[in-house]
């Protein structure tokens, strides 16, 4: 074992095991911090202020166990990205919009198919161009399915992905393969402000920009034959990934409620080390209102990804002159990365309802858990971990340890190591499209800077991140996806 002790800013980090580090309680921390990383990843983590942010989150009222950070942790605002925090509402536990983020229910879904590499190898540019045309992307993208009226948006906020299915975008089977069935029941449209509604009316079915993407992949490695087969995945098979969230609708709700929480912090005399952590007790009127509005945005994001999936399936069928059924296009699973949810967990031998914040983290419920759909219950919920656009992504599965150690959570992606500004500098003078093409990936990007900001060098190696979760016993790899074609916003 290498070094067992680090100092990060004003905090000590003590090694607990090969891939687990503890930040002991100091000052106003109510619980310790716990970071999942090996020596290599720790070097990245120590370069920025993420450790301080893990410690800051440990100040939240009612936090249970530890303030957690997954190995893809990086410096965010308020919460670190890759942070998990569970609070106990019965003990004054708080909910913090900053612990969810602006892009509420940003998440990813994987669409599996009967296609094999040979079926699409020569058609990738054509497919990417068609997807780029049919799924609106880029800044402020809109108009995928026509502007909704207020009644439709109200229904969508309550029904989530089921709304999209009802409108002809997909089937009921898709809902079963979506976290929470694609709908949080605590949604209440009366808690959503006018501005969010205005921004939400014409963005359903749009990708947006930044790190959002639509990708064509080939399954190039199987790590667990049994589970892969339960997921219906085969080596050489083609899959599609869609990564997006609740668009301007969610950003506005987060913004509006951060304002509400600024007041709540005064009202309830909550002391915080960072204003961006503003929060209110889950059981307070402000906490309940936020969760009801946040659920509307979560449902919006699920409807958004459901519509995009339908547009993707249609586009693929069109290009390959076939039908969606013949191509066997089906939703493997859809997970959220940015969310706060009321979930049942066992704490000190007792079942309790906790408010679990996942900010850049994925739910990873293991085999046998009642919230895992029937089709996967024997093996566990598929956990989708996208990497950067030039490397690879993983489909993993949670192990029993997630429930004991991480409130049923694991990592959500590669995690940035380089600022966007630095990435742009590094990309200057390079032909990134050509570099990606040399790697066998055809890319179309809407924003001029997106390609530079999102280049593989800007991210940690997703393989190292997933490897740490595996060595820590939290999640195991099932298959690897290698990108063939990418649409970036």
């Amino acid at each position, binding site marked *: 074992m290498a070094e067992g002790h680090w100092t990060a800013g004003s905090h000590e980090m003590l090694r607990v095991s090969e891939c687990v580090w503890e930040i002991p309680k100091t000052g106003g921390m109510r619980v310790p911090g716990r970071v999942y990383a090996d020596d290599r990843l720790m070097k990245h983590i120590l370069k920025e202020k993420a450790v301080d942010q893990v410690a800051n989150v440990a100040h939240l009222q009612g936090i249970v166990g530890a303030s957690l950070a997954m190995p893809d942790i990086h410096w965010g605002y308020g919460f670190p990205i890759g942070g998990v925090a569970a609070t106990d509402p019965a003990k004054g536990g708080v909910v913090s919009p900053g612990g969810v983020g602006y*892009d509420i229910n940003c998440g990813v879904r994987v669409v599996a198919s009967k296609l094999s590499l040979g079926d699409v190898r020569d058609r990738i540019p054509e497919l990417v161009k068609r997807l780029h045309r049919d799924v609106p992307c880029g800044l*402020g993208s809109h108009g995928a399915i026509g502007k909704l009226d207020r009644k439709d948006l109200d229904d969508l906020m309550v029904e989530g992905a089921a709304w999209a299915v009802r409108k002809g975008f997909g089937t009921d089977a898709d809902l079963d393969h979506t976290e929470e069935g694609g709908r949080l029941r605590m949604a209440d449209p009366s808690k959503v402000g006018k*501005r969010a509604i205005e921004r939400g009316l014409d963005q359903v079915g749009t990708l947006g920009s930044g790190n959002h993407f639509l990708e064509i992949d080939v399954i190039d490695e199987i790590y667990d034959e049994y589970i892969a087969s339960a997921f219906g995945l085969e080596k050489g098979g083609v899959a599609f990934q869609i990564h997006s969230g609740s668009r301007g609708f969610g950003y506005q709700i987060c913004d509006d409620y951060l304002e509400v929480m600024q007041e709540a912090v005064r009202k309830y005399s909550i002391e915080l080390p960072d*204003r961006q952590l503003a929060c209110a007790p889950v059981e307070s009127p402000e906490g309940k209102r936020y969760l009801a509005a946040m659920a509307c945005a979560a449902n919006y994001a699920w409807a958004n990804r459901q519509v995009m999936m339908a547009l993707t399936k249609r586009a693929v069928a069109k290009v390959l002159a076939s039908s969606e059924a013949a191509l066997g296009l089906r939703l493997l699973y859809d997970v959220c990365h940015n969310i706060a949810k009321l979930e049942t967990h066992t704490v000190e031998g007792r079942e309790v309802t906790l408010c679990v914040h996942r900010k850049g983290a994925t739910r990873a419920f293991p085999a046998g858990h009642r919230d895992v759909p029937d089709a996967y219950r024997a093996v566990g919920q598929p956990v989708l971990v996208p990497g950067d656009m030039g490397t690879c992504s993983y489909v993993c599965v949670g192990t029993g340890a997630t429930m004991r150690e991480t409130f049923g959570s694991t990592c959500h992606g590669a995690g940035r*190591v380089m600022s966007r500004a630095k990435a742009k500098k590094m990309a200057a003078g390079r032909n990134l499209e050509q570099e990606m093409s040399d790697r066998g990936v055809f890319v179309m990007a809407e*924003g001029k800077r997106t390609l530079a900001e999102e280049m593989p060098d800007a991210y940690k190696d997703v393989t190292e991140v997933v490897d740490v979760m595996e060595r820590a016993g939290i999640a195991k790899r099932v298959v690897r996806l290698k990108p063939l074609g990418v649409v970036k916003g």
Partner: protein
Amino acid sequence: MAERPEYTEIDHTADVGMALTADGVEAAFEKAAACMFDLVCDLDTIGDGWRGEVRVEARAEDLQNMMVRWLSELLYVFESKRVLLSSFRITEMDKGGIRAEIRAEIAGEPIDLEKHAIKTELKAATYHDLRIEEDEGSWAVRVIFDT
């Protein structure tokens, strides 16, 4: 066309930030708005044919809150009207009383992707590491945005 304002782009791993200075508090707010839009699209490529007005309410004696509300309001105008803004003139800034208030005249140009090279999408102005401080009449502002 407006001139591009002077500011430093802050290196932040996941997001993007700006640091700027101005003489006077109104000027600091106006310049922060200009810098924010310059992060989205070079300000010297944005016209000013579109005119509007905004009114922002915030908590009194809380400049951080005023700054976040002000920038959020402008991002909302940008996305809801699909207008890139290039010019900001604060006509009234009342920091006292129970609520603070800013009134401003703004100008810009509807987004035209042929003409405007969009550099980045800003989701929101955050309170994280937010600074707005005066030192002998010079105001220093630092804002991190979620991108």
